């Protein structure tokens, strides 16, 4: 076999007492797409950050074409031909697309930026690779999908030989994903080496040539994609046999708990983004609202949960009209809310797990009363951490140090354990691994079975078709299809989602 383009040897990276990456070897060849798999917190991003110079490994070496290199900074990485599209976008919102793409390597004459040239580069690249963006628009105003394209363009703009894509499809629509895969296959065909991180095995199977699996910072498998089955991969990833996802029974609905009527919502700029949405959710059922991100779901959820004042329409929770009321009142009416923006809204990163959980319990006798008690707060946190399988070193651990799955389980613990009558959750499994995703979904089903009315807003077709009892499809702020009598198939909803776009 020929020499690998890139070889990572014995990379170790620790954060304090925990070892995030534990002597990992990785060999990447030109012209191939190499998938890197693993649960949340397995160390994938950490390993890649070491490769890209954002982190310095504690030990281990990096070789390019057999020559040992020191990647001390992203700048160095770029010089070496390593490009990276980050899991969490690293873009500057107020700058234009062209400025972002050229950042750090602007074409210039003297000190001045040649804006025209930078824009031309972006235009050329976006034509060449079929990544459609306007170089002059500001990143702030772009959809997530478009921001993703900007990230990729940025990596491409500098003749990279090795391209790292960290969960690039997590925020893309199915159609965008499809196009995106064409693009990266094109990269490989031109001789680039691609490292792809993803939680979606079906995607991986479609594009990757070989896979490496990390578990708890260690490499547990490496093989060509043809040599492993999806079941085997899943087992490798979670370290045990995959639980069989049994078909979720449909619920038995009771009385109406949440009813939305003629809801109009405006976004931050005053444009109406949700139009005359009406539906109800009954006790003991999960209603799924499915739609491509950016079709007004966010604003709709905010309006229902009291975070945004609707322009008109009514929201009735447990018989109480809550439209336009403060979140405090909405919650008292019986709402539990798992927010889309987990880290901004759903938890305080600089607070401990204990505080994050007990802040939702302040008005209950359990920890409440005007004076709070650390002991009781700790006891509550420990109990819920066990109940909801939140894995943290201790209740005192800072929430921002939790992996995505555990953070989400912590939010669920706070929101669901109080047995709210109405649960609204938005994108509850975004960015979570297989095991965590399964856990979150079964929690929602459990809440339903205990009699909660659950509104599940999601852009994942399989999520909605798996657990929702009724499915509504939202597009451009309107409900465009409704499936009451049966769980729709992926094909059915897929058509409806696109239909709304005509």
């Amino acid at each position, binding site marked *: 076999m020929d020499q690998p383009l890139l070889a990572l040897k014995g990379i170790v990276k620790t954060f304090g007492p925990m070892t995030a990456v534990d002597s990992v070897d990785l060999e990447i060849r030109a012209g191939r797409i190499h998938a890197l798999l693993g649960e949340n917190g397995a160390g994938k991003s950490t390993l890649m950050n070491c490769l*890209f110079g*954002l982190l310095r490994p504690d030990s281990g070496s990096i070789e390019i074409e057999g020559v040992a290199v020191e990647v001390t*900074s*992203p*700048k*160095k*990485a*770029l010089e070496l031909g390593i490009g*990276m599209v*980050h899991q*969490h*976008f*690293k*873009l*500057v*919102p*107020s*700058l234009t697309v062209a*400025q*972002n793409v050229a*950042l*750090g*390597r*602007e074409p*210039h004459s003297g*000190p*001045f*930026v040649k804006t025209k040239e930078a824009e031309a580069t972006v235009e050329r690249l976006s034509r060449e690779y079929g990544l459609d963006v306007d170089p002059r628009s500001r990143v*702030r105003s772009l959809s997530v999908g478009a921001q993703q394209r900007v990230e990729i363009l*940025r990596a491409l703009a500098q003749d990279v030989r090795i391209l790292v894509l960290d969960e690039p499809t997590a925020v893309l629509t199915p159609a965008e994903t499809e196009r995106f895969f064409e693009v990266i296959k094109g990269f490989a065909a031109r001789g680039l080496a691609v490292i792809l991180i993803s939680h979606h095995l079906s995607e991986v199977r479609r594009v990757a040539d070989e896979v490496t699996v990390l578990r708890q910072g260690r490499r547990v498998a490496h093989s060509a994609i043809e040599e492993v089955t999806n079941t085997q991969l899943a087992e490798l990833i979670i370290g045990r046999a995959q639980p069989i996802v049994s078909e979720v029974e449909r619920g038995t609905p009771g009385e109406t708990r949440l009813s939305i009527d003629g809801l109009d919502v*405006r*976004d*931050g*700029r*005053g444009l109406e983004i949700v139009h005359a949405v009406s539906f109800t959710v009954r006790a003991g059922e999960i209603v799924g609202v499915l739609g491509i991100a950016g079709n007004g779901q966010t604003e709709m959820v*905010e309006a229902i949960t009291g*975070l*945004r*004042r609707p*322009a008109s329409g009514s929201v009735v929770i447990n018989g109480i009209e809550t439209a336009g009321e403060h979140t405090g009142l909405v919650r008292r009416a019986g709402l539990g809310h798992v927010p889309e923006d987990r880290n901004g809204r759903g938890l305080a990163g600089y607070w401990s797990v204990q505080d994050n959980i007990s802040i939702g319990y302040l008005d209950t006798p359990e920890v409440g009363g005007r004076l709070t008690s650390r002991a009781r707060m700790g006891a509550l946190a420990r109990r819920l951490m066990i109940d909801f399988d939140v894995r943290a070193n201790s209740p005192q651990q800072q929430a921002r140090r939790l992996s995505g799955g555990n953070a989400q389980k912590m939010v669920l613990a706070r929101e669901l354990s109080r047995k709210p009558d109405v649960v609204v959750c938005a994108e509850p499994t975004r960015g979570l691994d297989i095991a965590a995703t399964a856990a979150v979904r079964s929690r929602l089903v459990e809440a339903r079975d205990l009699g909660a009315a659950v509104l599940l807003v999601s852009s994942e077709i399989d999520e909605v078709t798996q657990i929702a009892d009724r499915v509504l499809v939202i597009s451009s702020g309107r409900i465009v299809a409704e499936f009451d009598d049966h769980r729709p198939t992926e094909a059915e909803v897929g058509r409806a989602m696109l239909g709304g776009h005509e």
Partner: protein
Amino acid sequence: MSALGDFLSLALSSMIPILVTAIGGMFAERARATNIALDGTMLISALGAIIVGAATGNPWLGLLAGVISGIAYAAILAFAAFVLRCDLLIAGIAANLLATGVTLLVVQNVLKSTGTYAPANVPLIPRVSLGFIGKIPVIGPALSDQSALFYVVVVVTILGALVLNRTRFGVHVKAVGESEEAAEAAGLKPILTRTVTLLISGAAAGIGGTYLSLSSVASFNSDLTGGLGFIAFAAVIFGRATPLGTILASVLFGIATAASIQLQGSGVIDPQLLHSLPYVATVLALAVQSIRRHRLNRFDVTDTSFLPAIIPRG
């Protein structure tokens, strides 16, 4: 008409030290390296300028010394913030204290002058009389006989706007200030960029300080700035760290200061209350500005956060 010209002339000369200092502060603020030690920096460079100006007899060397001492002082601040890793705000407060102490110490123990250092026969930064332009109504009296530093400041301001909006460095400053991670991932060095912006703010405050000690009167004491550095800082924040905003804010301060001097002549309002005019004007203008923005965003009831370092969203 000449009254208007005289008024503008006064407004301009009140504006000079504020504007130039604010333009420098704008860079630091934009890179999220908030410099509240502008006042102390002005003080240090006012002293540096007058010492060298008096020693060499050349006011331009004085200006150079003012700028260099401003840069040096900002370097101390950067050292405290990025090497000692003090909170930048606390370091700024400490730097202001330090400036008072150091200047007093130098004036008393090195220059052997009690409190106020006012050497005789120091050549001042020249004033520029504009010849025939001075005859044009309003503009003539407003512009003629301004200190040559006025033109320096105009150049610095234009340069500042150009650098921030047209150059690579400007883009880097914005990127570092708005998203440190994005900047890092693009291979920029945030700390380096911040340090440079701090040095720029020091240099600009150096010009402002020189104006105070070497343009109209060659005199220095440790209360010389009278809080002008804080006013400049206010202009930065008020102008949302954009060039145009900062210029407008400084102009507002200049006009309000001139008004508080000119209206005293009329004798209708208590001088003490008149003195508050620039500050009251700021609060009013700020209130109007945010109420208008609030109108535009009134549909958005969710935004309850704020950004201590000012990043323009427009």
